[in-house]
């Protein structure tokens, strides 16, 4: 594979792991807008252990995962008392605090960032992404997954039916934080450098968008969302200049046509987000996507209509 494609495959795999981390929180109905904070924790833990103590990547990445998971659990217990908008703001504030603390930490390099001496090939993030996807698919098929789904749909009923709502939420949030930390550790070793400016609010926003636009109902959502929104900007890198040239030629302009501004990619992405929310707010992949080929009993259909 060429360098360009290995770069894209690596970042795609990292984004998939990251998206699964946020997905676990979203699947219990908790919007986590602090993803960059957990990823930064994992990345800096791995980078520091590698740079200062010379640990091998396998151990640093594992340590990063554990650090992010433990801190995620510590923050989940007080923060998950919050709901809706408050929770969004709380997780967002957490990410900003993490970024602010790392920025002021001499040991972690402050604004300069940390170099990561040990390098991992693209196969490692890809293997991690596959393992994560399998893990989340398995989890969502277990009794725990059923509890997660019930808490997402209606926490009061879930509570009445004997689901430990708080326990499920904290567990899902902490596990999600650990996966976000894992993605951070992979990032640190794959790109050989961490700097805190990379783990900013936009990153938290993007990863939450991957999950919500992919669809939070099934474990396919984050995979599809991360793949779509990582590859879309890359596809537009070649598509947009071609489109501009076609439009300009159609209006009779000839000669040297400058490529369009890089920012157009984000305009298209934003417009796609708005359109998705208007036409398909439940995400690209839903439970109905897979229910379609199955045969429904004719008697059940009117009951379902009446219930809505």
């Amino acid at each position: 594979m060429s360098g360009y494609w290995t770069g894209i495959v690596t970042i795609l795999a990292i984004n998939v792991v990251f998206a699964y981390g946020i997905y676990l929180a979203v699947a219990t109905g908790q919007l986590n807008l602090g993803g960059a904070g957990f990823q930064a924790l994992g990345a800096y833990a791995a980078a520091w252990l590698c740079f200062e103590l010379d640990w091998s990547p396998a151990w640093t990445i594992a340590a990063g995962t554990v650090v992010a998971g433990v801190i995620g659990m510590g923050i989940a217990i007080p923060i998950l008392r919050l709901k809706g908008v408050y929770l969004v703001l709380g997780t967002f504030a957490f990410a900003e605090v993490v970024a602010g603390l790392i920025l002021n930490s001499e040991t972690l390099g402050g604004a300069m960032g940390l170099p990561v001496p040990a390098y991992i090939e693209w196969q490692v993030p890809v293997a991690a992404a596959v393992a994560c996807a399998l893990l989340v698919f398995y989890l969502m098929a277990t009794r725990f997954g059923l509890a997660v789904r019930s808490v997402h749909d209606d926490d009061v009923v879930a509570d009445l039916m004997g689901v430990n709502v708080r326990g499920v939420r904290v567990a899902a949030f902490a596990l999600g934080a650990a996966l976000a930390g894992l993605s951070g550790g992979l990032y640190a070793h794959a790109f050989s450098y961490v700097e805190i400016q990379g783990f900013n609010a936009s990153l938290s926003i993007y990863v939450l968008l991957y999950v919500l636009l992919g669809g939070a109902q099934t474990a396919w959502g984050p995979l599809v969302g991360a793949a779509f929104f990582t590859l879309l900007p890359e596809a537009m890198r070649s598509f947009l200049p071609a489109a501009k040239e076609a439009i300009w030629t159609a209006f009779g302009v000839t000669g040297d046509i400058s490529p369009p501004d890089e920012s157009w990619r984000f305009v298209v992405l934003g417009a796609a987000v708005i359109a998705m929310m208007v036409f398909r707010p439940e995400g690209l992949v839903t439970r109905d996507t897979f229910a379609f080929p199955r045969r429904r009993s004719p008697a059940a259909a009117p009951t379902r209509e009446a219930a809505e």
Partner: protein
Amino acid sequence: MLLIQQVVNGLMLGSVYVTVAVAFTLTIGILNFLNFTIPTLFMLAAMMGWSFAAWGLPFGLTEPLAWPLALALGVAVAIAASLVVERFTFRYLRTKHGDSTEHAIPLVSSLGFLLVLENLVRIGYGSDAQRFPGPSADLTLSVGGLFFRIPQVISLVVVALIVLGLAWMMKSSRIGRGLRAIAENPDAAGILGVDTRRVVPVVFMLTGLLCGLAGSLFAVNYGEVSPQMGEDIGSKAIAGMVLGGLGSLWGAVAGGIVIGLIEMLTIHFFGADTVQATVWGALLLTLMIRPQGLFGHNAIGKGKL
């Protein structure tokens, strides 16, 4: 004396945060919608004001009249943009499934608008900061050894007038009563004759107006505009709103000023790099210890409209 000067500076900075925080708190208090386009509208008004002034609009007017009119046009653009946002975000709040992440829909589309508007401005005018050709920001007034910059004093007065006017409007006018009724219970408000579809856009017009004014005041005070200017102000305003209590007008006022003071005092004692950690740390602590904030009541954020 230097410390008192920092307190004065903090108050002045806080007044910009207050205006944006009030815009946030209105949409959250009435519609339970965290509108992420607010920082972008703030930036849009200032950037458009600058570009109108730079193009020589409004046509041929001489210096003392040109830039206030350009800023007024900028505010008008912000209000128009805010109404477009209303059309594409808030109208789609009701969902088919009714699950617990449904309140995220307008939030997510407002994030989409944030991307679109900010990058369109970047395409149009580049990412660099531009100098705003307003009055000199260096005119100072010295009272008892303390320095007050005159444009900032004027801004403070303007902000105070805006907040008082808004408080009066919410309390006494017909539209304000309608808005408060929707905040209490949208269904009951509808039954009692409040036309939700006509009243809700008013919130977005007010949002555009407040952000536009805040952006204009910022442009005049600091003499500089850039496509990134909204991010910092927006996050500080959110912090101020949460500190004061979501949905509370006076809470946003108090919170915005407190954040301005915290920022200035942190810079004074610990240096500029620690501002991010202290401001957001204050916010995180507030959310953990007293989520309703200083003045809010805990009914906000529990599923409305």
